[in-house]
């Protein structure tokens, strides 16, 4: 009984803590509901794809794929090239994906092989691998681009003639996917104003009378995310998906029943890396600027934190976890600095607080998972001895 209660608490502790924090912080921040909804919708569109890319390695029992930053870097390299060539709009995004895909596949295969050599400590290895490839990425982008790899656009390059600038503007593809099917949700008044300003090519999806102002909906991005969710649900039912789940349960048994364990694990990582590459491109088309040397770092940490906040653990994650996580994590992200400012008079504290929460929550989730696993192992050992 007590153990069951403990399990329920341990399984849902993280989202519960977050709902509690948000319940305090939202009124303190003083933001209006429509502002919060708008921000959340934008951020769901921006981040969900990246987070969804983490699901498949978890299914294959490889834990949180900290190596997703490899995919993010591949995506960024694709974006750098389309900026250089001046390809804009949806064709630009597609081209960036096409350039990123082979790089992501190669990096994914590399990552998969490394992780197969480090079974049992995949997470810390993929984490360090992220740093290692970051070094290689910096070498390529900072020294080889413009020197060995032709980059002709001078606005991309540092003044010394080679190496890419720290901040690259992505004006050419900014918001192209989000605004492909411009859609708003608006109150009666807001709808009128919005349609007047934006013209007839905006669809009014929903009219809610009590709402003030208008909320933009990045519909095309949402459709892509929905398609991707459908892909994951379908993928779980395929032979490959079933193999991955079997490996996630027990590698030894899977091997005996004829599943190529190492190969399947590599495929899981490759899929995750390629998807992270697309995810990063979607993320950056929304942001509109590329921080050449930082964007990918943050992508990994924030995605993993969000997934864990959604109630996922190292061995179990669902699509629902992704969306709950995005909403709760970014709710805190939006309100924490304002709440900090209104509470203590310093926005900096809210800023540090959300950094602390991002790391603290990953630590907490990892601890809870390891603790639970060790307790289960103990229990299994006891039951072998015949004790209760």
């Amino acid at each position, binding site marked *: 009984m007590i153990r069951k209660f403990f399990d329920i608490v341990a399984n849902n502790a993280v989202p519960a803590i977050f709902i509690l924090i948000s319940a305090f912080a939202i009124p303190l921040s003083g933001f209006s509901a429509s502002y919060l909804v708008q921000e959340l919708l934008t951020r769901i569109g921006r981040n969900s794809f990246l987070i969804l890319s983490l699901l498949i390695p978890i299914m294959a029992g490889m834990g949180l794929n900290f190596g997703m930053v490899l995919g993010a870097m591949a995506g960024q390299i694709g974006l750098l090239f389309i900026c250089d060539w001046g390809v804009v709009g949806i064709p630009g995004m597609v081209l960036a994906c096409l350039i990123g895909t082979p790089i992501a596949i190669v990096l994914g295969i590399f990552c998969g092989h*490394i992780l197969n*050599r*480090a079974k*049992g*400590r995949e*997470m*810390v*290895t993929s*984490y*360090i*691998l992220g*740093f*290692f490839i*970051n*070094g*290689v990425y*910096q*070498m390529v982008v*900072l*020294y080889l681009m413009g020197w060995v790899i032709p980059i002709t656009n001078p606005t991309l390059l540092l003044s*010394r003639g080679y190496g890419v600038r720290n901040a690259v503007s992505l004006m050419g593809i900014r918001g192209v996917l989000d605004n492909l099917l411009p859609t708003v949700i608006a109150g009666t008044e807001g709808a009128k104003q919005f349609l007047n300003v934006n013209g007839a090519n905006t669809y009014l999806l929903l009219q809610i009378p009590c709402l003030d102002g208008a909320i933009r909906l990045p519909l095309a991005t949402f459709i892509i995310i929905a398609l991707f969710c459908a892909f994951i649900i379908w993928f779980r039912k395929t032979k490959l998906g079933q193999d991955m789940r079997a490996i996630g349960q027990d590698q030894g048994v899977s091997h005996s029943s004829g599943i190529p364990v190492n190969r399947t694990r590599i495929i899981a990582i490759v899929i995750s890396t390629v998807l992270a590459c697309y995810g990063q491109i979607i993320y950056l088309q929304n942001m509109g600027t590329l921080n050449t040397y930082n964007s990918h770092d943050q992508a990994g940490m924030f995605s993993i934190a969000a997934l864990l906040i959604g109630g996922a653990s190292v061995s179990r994650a669902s699509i629902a976890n992704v969306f709950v996580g995005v909403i709760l994590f970014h709710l805190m992200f939006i309100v924490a600095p304002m709440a900090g400012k209104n509470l*203590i008079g*310093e926005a*900096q*504290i809210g800023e*540090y*607080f959300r*950094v*602390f929460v*991002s*790391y*603290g929550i*990953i*630590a907490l989730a*990892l*601890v809870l*998972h*390891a*603790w639970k*696993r*060790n307790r289960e192992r103990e229990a299994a050992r006891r039951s072998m001895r015949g004790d209760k």
Partner: protein
Amino acid sequence: MIGKFIKSAGWPRIIIAAFLLGLFIAAPFVGVNIYTSFNNTLVRFGMNGIMVLAMIPMVQAGCGLNFGLPLGIIAGLLGATLSIELNTQILEWLVKFGTQYKYLSFLSQEFVTAYRQPIGFASAIIIAIPIAAVLGWFYGKLLNRVKGDEMMIATYVGFSSVSFMCIAWLLLPYKHPTMVWGYAGRGLRTTISVEGYWLRILNDALAIDVNEHLRIPTGMLIFFAVTAVIVWIFMRTKTGTALTAVGSNPEFARASGVNVDRMRTISVVMSTILGAVGIIVYEQSFGFIQLYMGPFYMALPAVASILLGGASVNKASILNVIIGTFLFQGILTMTPSVFNSVFQTDMSEVIRLIVSNGMILYALTRKVRA
């Protein structure tokens, strides 16, 4: 013979050692002063040595590489900042003790004033050690509950404690004018100079000037040697042996009556204390206390150093520390100067990233010998 040597040393280590040797050979030809390079390598060796030493107890006890080193560093930072904040009080207390107790009568006003810098340095360490012990004890208890996942959790314990302390540095009631932000009168600065307190106190002690470019920081090297000897002796006491036994084979150790969890906790406490002392030694040479996000990535160079020296995820010795720190810091000092003269560009940051993380990856993917 050579094949055996390569096998025992490992390819990455040989490549990196050869790379460093090449840098030292190339240095005079590209106009880099070999003495200056050697001087910098020695100083950085002394600065980082104790933090690398901090890896030994946890590796030996089977807790893996201490990616949670920032926790110990935080204890050190608290000790360092408190020693400056309370500097005048501490000196006053010492004089008071000197007048009260006969056997402390050497603590006269003149003595305390003359030696206020060493006293300040000692007080930083004395304040830091109990803080590190307490933090390390909790950290050890936590790691005992998560056996098998220590390294990943250690990383995030380090990160979250650093970001938690970011809030604390802003809110703690420090008052000392050289440490808090001038306009607000509260909240610690991001970097605090230790000039006038204990700047280069170990570096300059007994320093030997070989020529104008090379100055051997004898005091700091002696401090490192003493700490290393203490660790060496500790690892050979009954507790130290039990600790190694736990790391080699926990089941066997348990069967022979060793309290596994207790040994692991002791190793973590020791590692944390060494981290705290290490950062203070680092700061006295560097000249600044770096707060906020400063300690964030400090575990990685230390981890990479000991692995470079030949340690594995579950075996490490003092010799590994010395060789590793020397190689790693050597590369850090030599690459910028040599590469700058040859290519007119500083690639040291990229090389540091690739070498240190490549080394950690190599260690993590190596088959563990039973």
